[in-house]
């Protein structure tokens, strides 16, 4: 030990700490981080059931907030300098991080981490593209700490787990004061940072319905570098086809980072369904997806570039699904 504080001795540890700190507050002259407001709260509840969480959120309406991994919340509190009276930590609720396959459904607990998702044998077998998306979130450390629920409830347009879950037509199971409700993920997001959750509700679980065995799915993320970067554009595609005719039987296209919320490119889907999958139809679908996207310009990319890349990535993702289908024995 560099500093040998006595074991189990509060008074001494605290005493020493005071002498240690006195007059020694050093600030980094370059970083502005010391100007950020310290996140502050008075109460921290580690709840053991969803019901308990909901009860506290209802009692402290407007003054409390759910915290899961905290990778979004703490960083935002620090940058924007807002505080709340109480935080409700849901990561200790037993079973809330489970990933199970049950009666054909896949159930994902809200506090499963991206690492859990990327390593899950259930997902690797049945919904590989979600595991792929999880393995590309942030950095190894962020993947150990963040959660599925946080990724979705934070409602960033760039949330990497959203496009794959959109194409699987997943449902969000929400617990609130009046019981539970299920909302299709398609209508879960209402704007940047906004969802259908009211302040005393929590997201409990994501349910993926039974998937067609003969369909293929792909997730592609375009970032500026391989690690620690949000998507400039992300695309998830689910495809099934009639093998003899090569016509498209099922197509779902999910897009991230190119609209106020993660979206489905429904016009592109409608265009392709029933059509023969060839260069021309795939390119036209990709162009339709470009028209449906409404990207913004920011420090990371211009809206023109993002839109252009929607076309490129949708085309690439459909072709990748096709390749996988052609390699698949049915």
């Amino acid at each position, binding site marked *: 030990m560099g500093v040998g*504080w006595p074991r189990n001795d509060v008074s001494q540890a605290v005493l020493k700490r005071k002498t240690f700190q006195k007059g020694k507050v050093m600030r980094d002259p370059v970083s502005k981080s010391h100007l950020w407001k310290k996140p502050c709260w*008075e109460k921290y509840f580690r709840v053991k059931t969803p019901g308990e969480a909901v009860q506290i959120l209802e009692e402290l309406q407007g003054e409390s907030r759910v915290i899961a991994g905290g990778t979004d919340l703490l*960083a935002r509190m620090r940058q924007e300098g807002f505080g709340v009276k109480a935080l409700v930590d849901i990561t200790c609720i037993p079973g809330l991080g489970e990933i199970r396959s049950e009666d054909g459904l896949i159930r994902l607990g809200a506090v499963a981490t991206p690492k859990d998702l990327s390593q899950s044998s259930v997902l690797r077998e049945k919904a590989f593209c979600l595991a792929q998306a999880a393995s590309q979130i942030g950095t190894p450390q962020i993947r150990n700490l963040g959660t599925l629920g946080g990724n979705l409830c934070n409602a960033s347009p760039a949330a990497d787990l959203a496009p794959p879950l959109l194409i699987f037509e997943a449902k969000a199971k929400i617990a609130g004061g009046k019981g539970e409700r299920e909302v299709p993920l398609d209508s879960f997001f209402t704007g940047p940072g906004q969802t259908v959750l009211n302040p005393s509700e929590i997201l409990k679980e994501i349910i993926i319905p039974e998937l067609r065995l003969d369909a293929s799915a792909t997730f592609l993320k375009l970032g500026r570098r391989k690690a620690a970067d949000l998507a400039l554009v992300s695309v998830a595609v689910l495809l099934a086809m009639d093998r003899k005719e090569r016509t498209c039987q099922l197509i779902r296209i999910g897009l991230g980072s190119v609209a106020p919320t993660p979206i489905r490119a429904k016009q592109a889907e409608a265009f392709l369904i029933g059509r023969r999958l060839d260069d021309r139809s795939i390119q036209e679908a990709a162009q339709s997806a470009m028209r449906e996207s409404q990207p913004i310009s920011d420090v990371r990319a211009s809206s023109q570039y993002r839109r252009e890349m929607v076309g490129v990535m949708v085309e690439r993702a459909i072709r990748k699904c096709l390749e996988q289908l052609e390699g698949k024995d049915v």
Partner: protein
Amino acid sequence: MKRILKLHVNGEDFEILTEIHKTLLEVLREDLGLTGTKRGCDLGTCGACTVLIDGKPHLSCLTLTADVQGKKITTIEGLAQDGQLHPLQKAFAEKGAIQCGFCTPGMILTAKALLDEDPHPSEEKVKKAISGNLCRCTGYVKIVDAILSVTDKSSES
């Protein structure tokens, strides 16, 4: 509001009277005086504040102290045993994998977690493992060399 928090750091138990909203990074540095853990971006991006929690690399700047009670926390100060540097620490020094040294504690702890899980990782795996630890001096080559050199040694013995 102050609370007594119980922490298990580098094999020792501590009880600390501190603000409950403090991050693990703040408690390690300010309350325990373990300044080997660095504050870089304070936003979870740079990895300088990486510590091991139950053996896995975690960002102490985004970890609330109240949350890690009862868990095993390892900081860079906990690696040397009986006055002997950990093989990774030695390798970093010998291979010149340190320049300013700010990323080093986090880098070494991340590498330790990797080697504990997989004693013989490929170069690619090493690169992926440290992808959340930013270094602005060395260009990573010597860091990767240093980590790989430790895996060579253990395979010889």
